[in-house]
């Protein structure tokens, strides 16, 4: 596999990363890593457009209940609050993990906090799954009404993103086991952290617009 970028050794890559490269190499490395992170931002923003359109669809469907159950009957606000806390804490632990990775180069602490992030992600997903099952049990299946289709699509897309993030974390653990915290693994972790923080930002929109505005409608 290509563990070099454009013919340069992995030690050339690093944006505020713990490596032993001389300062001139570090500057060059920083520029390369910033480029990689910028590319990832382009992806995140295209993802933001997807979510925005799902939000727009949801907003146009708020009255399309077709006589089916509405947010008041289907949403459990306490569950949404727990999910919010789990995802927020996971965003924090993800930040801590990158901090230990970039400044201390400590494999142990980095992995510990990423494992906590993964566990919190799993807590979030199991709560969400529980919500979906409870909704379906009350007749709130996606085919019931336009509003339900839009809700399942929006919340489900976010849930799938979090699932992807969890799988990505597992893959990164395998990479750390094989390569250690080498500079390329570090930039991947940094992109994963951006992805994870971004998903928490999208969740702010979901709990505010779907859950909170839903139950007071």
């Amino acid at each position, binding site marked *: 596999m290509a563990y070099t970028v454009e013919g340069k050794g992995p030690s050339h890559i690093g944006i505020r990363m713990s490596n032993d490269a001389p300062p001139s190499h570090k500057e060059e490395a920083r520029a390369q890593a910033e480029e990689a992170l910028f590319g990832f931002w382009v992806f995140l923003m295209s993802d933001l*457009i997807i979510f925005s359109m799902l939000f727009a669809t949801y907003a146009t469907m708020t009255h399309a209940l077709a006589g089916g159950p509405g947010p008041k009957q289907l949403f459990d606000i306490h569950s949404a609050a727990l999910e919010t806390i789990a995802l*927020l804490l996971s965003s924090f632990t993800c930040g801590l993990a990158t*901090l230990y990775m970039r400044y*201390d180069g400590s494999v142990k602490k980095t992995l510990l906090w990423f494992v906590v992030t993964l566990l919190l992600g799993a807590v979030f997903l199991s709560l969400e799954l529980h919500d979906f099952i409870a909704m379906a049990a009350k007749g709130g299946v996606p085919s019931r009404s336009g509003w339900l289709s839009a809700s399942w699509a929006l919340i489900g897309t976010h849930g799938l993103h979090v699932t992807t993030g969890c799988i990505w974390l597992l893959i990164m653990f395998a990479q750390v086991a094989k390569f250690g915290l080498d500079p390329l693994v570090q930039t991947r972790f940094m992109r994963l952290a951006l992805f994870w923080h971004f998903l928490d*930002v999208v969740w702010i929109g979901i709990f505010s617009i779907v859950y909170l505005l839903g139950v007071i409608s």
Partner: protein
Amino acid sequence: MSADPRRERRQELHGYIAGLCLALILSAIPFAAVMTGALPRAGIVWTIAIAALCQVMVHFRLFLHIDLSRSHRDDLQLILFSLLIVVLMVGGTLWVLGNQRAMMG
């Protein structure tokens, strides 16, 4: 770049802790407003909207490290341009379909 990584590290750590505290408070406020129902409906809606906007800014600044420094200028421009596209598309969708609903509903 700052020459002292230890100071930078401490600042960043404090940033994450501050981000967590602010985000927790800004999440708790709208949830509390909805659960207690202490405010009139319009007040709750405004509380939710303002708290969400503030929380998004806290996340971008303290978790995603987007600020006005030169090294983040490209990221910031990309984000602002994407936001423009989002505002046009979401605003347009709501405007057109909202009118349609009002006139045909």
